[in-house]
């Protein structure tokens, strides 16, 4: 089984959103292994992909992320996501 999973978030696009999301993981000592972010919808919202380890409190993390006011949608890809397979090429 894959030890990592990808969370795909749709969020409001403004300067504070990243600190909300990253802070949430950081203060629970939950490491974010990879991150990608691109604006969509002409820039009013963004997509964020987070590559995280499947730790025991992942469900709790997802619920916490979902609670953030600026997070509009959370999707979980337990089989990975091609955003990160493509990004891997840059760091080989």
């Amino acid at each position, binding site marked *: 089984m894959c030890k990592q999973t990808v969370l795909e978030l749709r969020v409001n696009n403004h300067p504070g959103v990243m*600190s909300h999301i990253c*802070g949430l993981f950081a*203060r629970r000592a939950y490491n974010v292994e990879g991150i990608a972010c691109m604006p969509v919808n002409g820039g009013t919202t963004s997509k964020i992909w987070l590559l995280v380890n499947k730790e025991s409190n992942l469900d*709790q993390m997802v*619920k916490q992320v979902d609670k*953030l*006011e600026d997070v509009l949608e959370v999707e979980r890809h337990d089989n990975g996501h091609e955003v990160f397979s493509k990004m891997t090429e840059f760091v080989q």
Partner: protein
Amino acid sequence: MKFSGAEIIVKLLERQGITTIAGIPGGANLPMYDALGQSEKIKHILTRHEQGAGFIAQGMARVSGQPAVFFATSGPGATNTLTAIADAKLDSIPVICITGQVPLSMIGTDAFQEVDTYGLSVPITKHNYLVRSVEELLHVIPNAFRLAASGRPGPVVIDVPKDVQTAILEFDEWPAPGRRDPGPELIPAEVERAAAMINAAEKPLLYLGGGVIQSGTSGDVLALAEKGNIPTVLTLMGLGILPHDHPLNLGMLGMHGARYTNMAMEECDLLIAAGVRFDDRATGKVAEFCPNAKIVHIDIDPSELDKIKTATASVTGDIADILNMLLPLVDRQARADWMERVASLKAACPMIVPDADNPASPYGVILRAAELAGNDAIVATDVGQHQMRTAQVYPFEQPRQWLTSGGLGTMGFGMPAAIGAALAAPDKTVLCFTGDGSIMMNIQDLATAMENNVNIKIILTNNNALGLVRQQQDLFYGKRYYASDYARRVDFVKIAEGFGIATYDFEQCEDPAALLAEAMATPGPAFIHVPISPDEPVYPMVPPGAANCEMIGGEANV
């Protein structure tokens, strides 16, 4: 219409029904203060510290259930608010802090009194805003109110750069005030499953906390307890949900709960947890909490479910809606064996209240003050032994009567929160039980109490020590009292007099009961000084990290 950002803020606050704002002005929020000065609907309470303003807002919000607002300037004004905001976050209290910020063009330049208020407040707010244009105010302010009050309530920070406050906006229509959203749609199968488990349980217990008070549903909770004959334990935040003398009310659980209360929990076969978060001060060692029980967990915040203890069944939603659906599904049951077992536990291991009849003793003064204040009084505390004693013995009658810093345990909460309570409920008596350590943390706002002539009765049990810390050193650190006794005494009576507050000193007083009665009968702020010994532990006590069955002290017949 054409208004400045500052005028828009004040008008929107008026439209939200705000009538009182505590705070302190400074360079970066002066436009807001100038606009506030023009308001005929909002009264400003000038505090002596921004933390005091935050706790005044909390006092108002805790008593009224409605969001309350406070103001601070940028930089040190904003950093001074943080403890009060973090406190509101942990106790889910709807307050809105509006701070001034340096002008947009200067953000990030280390300008005078610039601090990253947005960044500092991210982890301690439910949500926060840095307003980037005057147009944004029209949705940020109502949205802040909606967020603070909806779902699980909490604090919101709105940081407003000075140039946004002075910018002029032309617009056609005011936005609608922000209100609490209706609770999420219930899943009937979840409620049915919970009902079935309740009906099948032989020894169920209700475990209720602050969330029940937030959803304003204590009448239905009582009906549920009575219909199923389900004994009820309350968290520190839940005191007042059931009247203290209701036969099904087993009082506060946890670290300083009565012996029989924690013992009943050991035996229950079903724990119906509503509006609680399995805080460690309530549960003790989690693995051994209610070892024989299945759990039904009811909460509006899905992230609380399965966070500490995995529930057998959970129900997400507003507790008021859930009870509405649940109540008809729960069977009327006598549960005679369980009632009898709980009664015998209570008889064998009751709450022991030392020196209850002496009005000058640590417990006695609480009981006597309660008697004099009547059923309607509001009770605030600081943090320490006096807080735990009040929680243990005060005869609470109703929700929103009890104001204490539960989650953060903030010394300095009590007196300003009491001021806020008195401002929100001017016709009531507000008691504030405090300690000589705690009162010092916000003592400057005695001036605010005096200026506004609020009807608060501050009862200081003075052991010249950080009592609760000292008690831990006594029990768990070989009586090595280090940094918990004060080397010298300060004259609190003189200090209070200096602030222009009526004082009543139990020191060398022949008839403390009469003195207390006089203090309570005289309207306006009063400061009652009660010298006590530092060697008066609060019992029972569960050692931090131990299971709730490992209580120390408080046994009958010793």
